[in-house]
């Protein structure tokens, strides 16, 4: 009961702040049109309300977050539904299917002999919808099988190049860069970023990292003995890489937060 009253008081306070903000922002609008100022004031205030509602999740789940979440999901789902219709059906199917439909949707009709091919995905798409009819629902598995099989087959060669061959190719690096003997190496040793020592060290780190990383991802043998040591080095290298990646990405996320804070303190409160 107490929490209900507290929630009502909180909602009233939020509504009051919303109204004050709307009125203030409308009053400080830059446009000559009163309607534009009122509209812009409402939009900024509503954006602030949604931003703070999403931030309130940091405290705990609450009705404001639920509202923002439902609105966000609803708008997004509706947008994608609409986008799918206009880009796939109107954008791809209609211009190839019928001149009158193209004229109806105001898209240019494309007359080509190979348009018959577009009926294959249409048939598969319709078959996918047979899931809605329990008696012939099994037909939808044909479409699913085609989607999985075709994409897996197409991705095989694509990923074989990008994730395997290219990476293996880039791992074939000389372990002794500009090597003219141990004496020459020792006499010219330096920690300069473009120096021989750092180049050799980098290549050794890559070589050992790739070797030990591959050993870690070898599933057919138990990780014991020398194999286990190599595997352990592999996981250490992976974890060090993850640590560096973590820090780098967190910095990127902080910049997103700065963007929101700038919006709140700059666009809304005008104190930046």
């Amino acid at each position, binding site marked *: 009961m107490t929490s209900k009253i507290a929630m009502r008081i909180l909602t009233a306070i939020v509504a009051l702040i919303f109204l004050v903000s709307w009125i203030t922002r409308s009053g400080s609008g830059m446009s000559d049109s009163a309607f534009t100022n009122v509209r812009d004031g409402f939009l900024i205030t509503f954006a602030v309300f949604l931003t703070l509602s999403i931030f309130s999740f940091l405290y705990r789940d609450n009705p404001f977050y639920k509202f923002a979440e439902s609105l966000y999901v609803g708008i997004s789902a509706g947008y994608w539904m609409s986008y799918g219709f206009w880009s796939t059906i109107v954008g791809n199917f209609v211009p190839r299917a019928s001149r009158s439909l193209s004229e109806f949707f105001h898209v240019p009709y494309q007359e080509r002999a190979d348009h018959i091919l577009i009926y294959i995905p249409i048939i598969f798409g319709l078959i996918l919808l047979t899931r809605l009819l329990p008696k012939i629902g099994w037909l939808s598995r044909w479409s699913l099988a085609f989607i999985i099989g075709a994409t897996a087959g197409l991705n095989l060669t694509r990923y074989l190049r990008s994730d395997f*061959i290219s990476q293996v190719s880039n791992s074939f690096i000389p372990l002794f860069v500009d090597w003219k003997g141990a004496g020459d190496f020792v006499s010219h040793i330096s920690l300069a970023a473009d120096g021989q020592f750092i180049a050799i060290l980098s290549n050794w780190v890559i070589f050992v990292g790739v070797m030990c990383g591959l050993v870690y991802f070898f599933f057919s043998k138990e990780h014991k003995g020398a194999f286990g040591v190599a595997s352990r080095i592999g996981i250490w290298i992976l974890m060090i890489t993850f640590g560096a990646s973590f820090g780098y990405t967190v910095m990127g996320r902080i910049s997103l937060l700065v963007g929101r804070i700038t919006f709140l303190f700059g666009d809304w409160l005008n104190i930046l």
Partner: protein
Amino acid sequence: MKYIILLFLTCLSLCLSQALLAQTASSDPPAEAALVPSEPPAPPSNVRVSDLANDDGHGIRVTWDLSPDDGAGRSSVISYDIYRTLNPNDPDSLWKKVGTVVLGVRTYADRGEREPGSGSYLPKHTNLYYRVYAVGAGVRSAVATAGPAQATDDWFNTMKVPELIFCLVFLVLTVRFINMAKKGIDLYVRPLAGIEAIDEAIGRATEMGKPILYVLGIGTAGDIATIASFTVLGRVARKVAEYQTSMIVPCCDPVVMTIAQETVKTGYADAGRPDAYKEDSVYYVTSQQFPFVAAVNGTILREKPATNIYLGYFAAESLLLAETGVLAGSIQIAGTDQVSQLPFFVVACDYTLLGEELYAASAYLGREPLLLGTLKAQDYLKAIVLVCMVALLALRMITGADVISKPFDAPWW
């Protein structure tokens, strides 16, 4: 709470410092960068055009000799502009600019689109003419024209010979190991902690009477990680049905949802409990990343699942999901092949399947000959690569010959 306040204050100070910096920068006088037109550079010479090899018939290779002013002479060349037309007698305005390359480059691959409606369409079996200009500061050289050339398609892409070789080797190994598995020969696969924890996590959910949340990520049904995740989902669904607990599978893609529904349904049927399957347990949320995360986070906090399993393709939402799971007190098992997201799962989840472990998981769980054979073939391919790397590096060290630089990039075959 104090950490949130601290974070807030940090961001506030960052914003203020940013505003101050912006103010300081704006007080500096603007730099003047007006280009003063100079004398036109000499044009490139000996322009040749030919069909682009190893393509689908919509590309032309343009080659030329560098302008005398490119890196020499007056050194006034900045770049080269390449133009194309169907009729060499067209006025300048009808020649279409198709590309620009920087100084020192003497070739350009004009790769067009296949669709006639697209802006960069390049027709097949049609005479095409090209012009190349050397561009200086605000001026360009006299024109160098070449043509005609026709784009034709090739049946075999010689640049993909390494893929063919690897595919054939992989195919032979896979068939061999599948046959071995079918004959009942025991193929060892080392235990994976994350996968072994799944059964334990399902047991925990049963004891607590709470659901299991299974997220397939934001990938499409064609992503390898999503396909691998379907296999694990089938196994989890089977266990869930056996233990008579419940599961929630929110999906970010309608096709993924359809396949997930089929997979879960089959899992329940395999466990002998098809009646326990609820179609609503596998549902579509939205196709956009962050609304999807907002919805799943809300579900985690409201349903408080005992176990969260995140297997599939994940991007920026990985930490958001995993952190919320920690707040809800769930056991979390994650796995993805996205290297940039693995650190977040490693820090926030109890078990993480790193990259290829996700693919191995399906074979380890199912113990089906087809999957086991594929996993074994992958392992042996890795072993071959390891041996080749060591052998080639040793060969280089012994002979001093550069036999190892980019072995798959040049068409040396």
